[in-house]
């Protein structure tokens, strides 16, 4: 829906496309805390943050 909250909290990870849809620019760009806040703040609950397998 393009609220832009994720971009507000983790600007180097998320951006909004011209159509208002979210784009992941770089999943490693922001720290974990910023990603957590961005996911919590998504008003439609569209963001899930999972940790990549450290061995993988």
């Amino acid at each position, binding site marked *: *829906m393009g*609220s832009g909250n994720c971009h507000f909290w983790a600007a180097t990870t998320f951006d909004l496309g011209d159509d*208002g849809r979210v784009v992941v620019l770089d999943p490693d760009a922001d720290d974990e805390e910023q990603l957590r806040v961005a996911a*919590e*703040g998504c*008003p*439609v*609950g569209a963001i899930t943050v999972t940790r990549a397998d450290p061995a993988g």
Partner: protein
Amino acid sequence: MSTFADAVTTEEPVPFDPFELQDTVAGNVVDPYPKMAELLAESPVHVGPVDLGAGADPSFSDRPPPVTVFGFDECVAVLKDNETYSSTVYEGVVGEVMGRTILQMDEPEHRMARALVAPAFRSKVLERWEAGLVRSVVDGLIDRFVDRGRADLVRDLTFNFPVQVIARILGLPGSDFPRFQRWAIEITSVATNWERGVAASADLRDYFANVMAERRASPDDDLISELVAVEVDGERLTDEEIYSFLRLLLPAGVETTYRASGSLLYGLLTNPDQLQAVVEDRELLVPAFEEVVRWEPPVTVILRRATRDTELAGVPVQAGADVALLLGAANRDARKYEHPDQFDLFRSSRQHVGFGFGVHVCLGMHLARMETRVALDTLFDRVADLRFDPEPGQDYHIHGLAFRSPLALPVAFTAR
């Protein structure tokens, strides 16, 4: 057509007494939060009238019993389920004064209508207003009082800057600001003076009709030019939709920001260590603003109406029942937040429902964030040693029930 470089320092603010508005519109309640916490501890959802200190509303007697939601998770659940919980509840009073707006629409109409206005409120688009517009408005207001060493930051700053910012974003000429601010006050206080509010609504319609005709003839870099030109998937806004949306900007975009910025200053002034931290590191204005929208949301309650019989946290909700979501209570839900009643910009969870949640989440949140951040950043550049300095007996606490903010912010400072 004005440019945004217009000086705004020549217009005097419209004489206005926030006390007058607070007592009637907002409810003269100093602190409803202990009562909210007590009721939340009993149950996150209550059926039937509740008394938060202003008396229970008996007007529901012939309708399904109203439901009041206090819990954080329960508020989020209602706001996510916008089929069961409809926004058409706003068709009544708000719809009559403002006209048909996204506030009262359900899906899929809401999604299409919001898509037309949303691009203008994205954070990247708003950046262009930051330095030249918001900062210059705030600097102009500070110029008037900075040499005095004392001020009431409500009267002298927070009450005035959001309306001037909106007026300039709309591209209105500086000479129109006084009457625009008067209409803003009149339409926002419609609950206390219905006829005056409705008259202001009609005046604003005529005024905007003229401005829109001008912008169609010669578009400029302003929101009205954008709204008359916008097109998404072949859909355009009708003139009536634009009038309604622009009218809605006054209560939605002016009053809330005035209240939130005042409460943020209050939160910082009553916590001098946090004020000091923010003055030294302005990046902290970002979490500080989020924290005030959690701690003292300017709008403490929003409404939905149940479209079917359902159940919330085990409590039955009848079809047709008005459902009041106490965002203020949810934002202090002790099941979610530690020391929920403290203003703490360093708290770990920054999630809150002060802007609402779900598809109707506040469209103007990025504007509110940017405006308030720039306003306080500018203030801290101009004054040092900011501290409360009330007259003997002066009441400057945060007041209100549905809408809350400080009555006054009497301060002393040293000009930098």
